[in-house]
């Protein structure tokens, strides 16, 4: 029997009843979400520590605080976002009222991954709730402690007729996807993204897919190696490398590589001490499967820094690989671990060519003291997002749309973009019921003089209907 039918039915009926429409209801839901984060901060931190060995600092910054910020932003702006958006009119519609109305789609499904299980479940949820949808959340079963907290505690803070958490693995998710949703928001791999999109096709469900890729990091010769090393290493090792927007590989000249290596070692020591294994600031790999995968990648190229691993607690040392071939596994898949390969190129052109022969990534980084070089990399490549001279700092700006392109995804969110993503933008024109004389020109019977009038109107660039 289908375990989801009853839940989905309940949510659908609640949506039809109209209860999610008023701003007061939506604000109450958002406030509930905010209280959940405050009341259970410790519980969430513990779950994240159990799942990912995530430090309190990282949990605070990239999961709890960040989500709280989105909740607060939505609460502050909800009524503004909900307002009809007036648009410019043409000559014929001057006396009419033309606007875009933001409406909820209905029943939204959010499928979230294990690497930032709080952030990537709840930030989309903020958008879906603010937009007035009923929501089904399917958190990842891989980050199982966080999944438990979301399944057992979170619903108590929200209207359970309008929100439900469902649990399960790939099989259950497949079953869930057979049902009709009015919007699907998926964060995960491109491979599963295709499966989700194919499922969405059945019901013509619009989707946002936040996927991944290999995020290139171009380092120009015109750089201070230590500054670059600090930034690249930190963003690479954040959350033990398990970040969809982390720098995945470096492209630089052989000379720059020589300068970067000692600088990177210095950065690693500074951040994680002489024995990174004992640092509270370095996490662990999520599970056995990924650990084995990453351990395998340590054999690619030549280990220049790090390379240690320990199966007992799924520890992978911050590692830099050199002399890597394009055909090796470390260059064939998204790394998603604290391993950074460096590939050498002889020029900016070669770097750009290398990047453009591959799938469009979710993020792309360029380091140079020359603004011109940074702008060139931007202009001649494509990626979901772009960072000049830093890592994924752009994730902290809710005014920037976060999303991929090509293989790295479609759609975007964060801040107002979340609200807009989960809304149908309905074009509305309220015409004047009088002034019929003006409209007569459009009706039959046709005549030559009417045609002439119309052609004149075309010349003066206005539309008369």
């Amino acid at each position, binding site marked *: 029997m289908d375990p989801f039918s009853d839940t989905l039915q309940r949510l659908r009926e609640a949506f039809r009843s109209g209860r999610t429409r008023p701003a007061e209801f939506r604000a109450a839901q958002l406030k509930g979400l905010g209280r959940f984060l405050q009341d259970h901060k410790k519980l969430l931190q513990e779950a994240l520590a159990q799942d990912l060995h995530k430090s309190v600092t990282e949990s605070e910054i990239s999961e709890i605080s960040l989500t709280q910020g989105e909740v607060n932003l939505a609460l502050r702006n909800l009524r503004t976002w909900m307002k009809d958006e007036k648009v410019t009119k043409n000559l014929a519609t001057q006396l009419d009222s033309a606007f875009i109305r933001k409406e909820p789609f209905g029943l939204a499904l959010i499928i979230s991954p294990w690497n930032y299980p709080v952030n990537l479940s709840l930030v989309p949820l903020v958008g879906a709730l603010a937009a007035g949808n009923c929501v089904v959340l399917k958190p990842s079963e891989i980050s199982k402690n966080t999944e438990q907290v979301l399944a057992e505690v979170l619903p108590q803070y929200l209207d359970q007729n309008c929100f439900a958490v469902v649990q399960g693995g790939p099989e259950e998710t497949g079953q869930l996807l057979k049902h009709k949703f009015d919007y699907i928001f998926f964060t995960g791999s491109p491979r599963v993204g295709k499966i989700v999109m194919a499922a969405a096709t059945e019901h013509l469900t619009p989707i946002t897919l936040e996927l991944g890729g290999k995020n290139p990091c171009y380092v120009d010769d015109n750089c201070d190696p230590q500054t670059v090393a600090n930034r690249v290493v930190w963003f690479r090792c954040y959350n033990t490398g398990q970040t969809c927007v982390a720098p995945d590989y470096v492209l630089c000249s052989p000379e720059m590589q020589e300068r970067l290596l000692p600088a990177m070692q210095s950065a690693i020591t500074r951040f994680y001490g002489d024995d990174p294994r004992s640092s509270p600031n370095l996490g662990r790999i999520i599970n056995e499967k990924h650990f084995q995968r990453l351990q395998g990648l340590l054999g690619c190229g030549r280990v220049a820094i790090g390379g240690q691993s320990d199966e007992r607690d799924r520890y992978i040392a911050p590692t830099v690989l050199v002399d890597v071939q394009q055909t090796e596994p470390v260059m064939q898949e998204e790394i998603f671990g604290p391993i950074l390969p460096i590939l050498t190129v002889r020029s900016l052109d070669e770097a750009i060519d290398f990047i453009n022969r591959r799938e469009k990534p979710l993020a792309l980084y360029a380091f140079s003291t020359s603004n011109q070089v940074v702008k060139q990399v931007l202009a001649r490549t494509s990626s979901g997002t772009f960072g000049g001279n830093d890592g994924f700092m752009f994730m902290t700006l809710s005014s920037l749309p976060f999303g991929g392109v090509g293989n790295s995804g479609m759609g975007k969110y964060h801040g107002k973009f979340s609200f807009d993503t989960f809304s149908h933008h309905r074009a509305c024109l309220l*015409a004047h019921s009088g002034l019929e004389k003006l409209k007569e020109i459009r009706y039959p019977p046709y005549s030559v003089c009417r045609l002439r009038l119309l*052609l004149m109107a075309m010349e003066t660039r206005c539309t008369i209907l």
Partner: protein
Amino acid sequence: MCKISEIVQRARAAFNSGRTRSLQFRIQQLEELRRMIKERQKDIAVALAADLHRNEWNAYQEEIVYSLEEVEHAIKKLPEWVLDEPTEKTAQTQQDECYIHSEPLGVALIIGTWNYPFTLTIQPMVGAIAAGNAVVIKPSEVSENVANLLATIIPQYLDKDLYPVINGGVPETTELLKERFDYILYTGSTGVGKIIMTAAAKHLTPVTLELGGKSPCYVDKDCDLDVACRRIAWGKFMNSGQTCVAPDYILCDPSIQNQIVEKLKKSVKEEIFGPIMPIVCVRSLEEAIQFINQREKPLALYVFSQNDKVIKKMIAETSSGGVTANDVIIHLSVHSLPFGGVGNSGMGSYHGKHSFQTFSHRRACLVRSLLKEDPLKGRYPPSMAKMMRH
């Protein structure tokens, strides 16, 4: 069949050459498109007449005008649309450049349809060109004359490699859909829309699907029935009823049903033929809303009333791609309004700037200086400093 593959590869190579990047190039191509429409108006009208039995007046008013408007608007506005959009910064990013950079997606595929075969191919094309893409155009084979005309005249005015026209039926379209595109815009039926989206899913290609549905038209007791029926008839019988946003059926109180029938008959007496418009009797606005909501979300919804409250309630309690109150269809003529469906009537939208955005990737950019390391020292471990969010 391998010819289709070659054509698409050539378009991709042409895109990769980078020549669509410059604003000047895109404007020049749009100006050529405008010149094409103006110079070949007669040929276009003849082809439309052959395919749809439309006269010259209809050809201009219902198709060519829209296309010309769209391309004029794009030429005028493109210099503004291509600009980077600066965004609000946080305390920590005050010194940085934060903006959204619009870029082309690559090779777009536009699949046209037969009821407005010219404009429903050209209007999306304007957006795709403006956004800097290469565009493969697949007109509907059902409107054969327009399809053949487009295949002839487009290469005469526009870049031959970047904007190829591919004609053919189901086998050719199936072949075409095997190719990888960076965007697909399809106008047509729900059934085929699903086929398109399935093909797109294989390559993770984003899509806009402009589909159809039964557009309801609620006529309140409190309205000028003469005006309402005249406008409804105009929209319904336009293009012999073959308009995706035409009012499909009327909902009204039984007491005005007969009047509506009479007035509609009077309005269409000039027409040679016209399908009967179904009228569903409802006893209240609530019942009308219920009737509408039991059905798939339509592409358009219409409501006639002098009472603002009625209009507001109808809009608030239903959903549809778009709405016009006290008239029909004309919400399509306002550039600044997005044209698209919801639910079964489609996803995505275009027209005006919405076209440009549909066919662009809006890339989030944060550019900072390499020289200012000190302020950032606090964020690295082993310190407990935080990156504060706005």
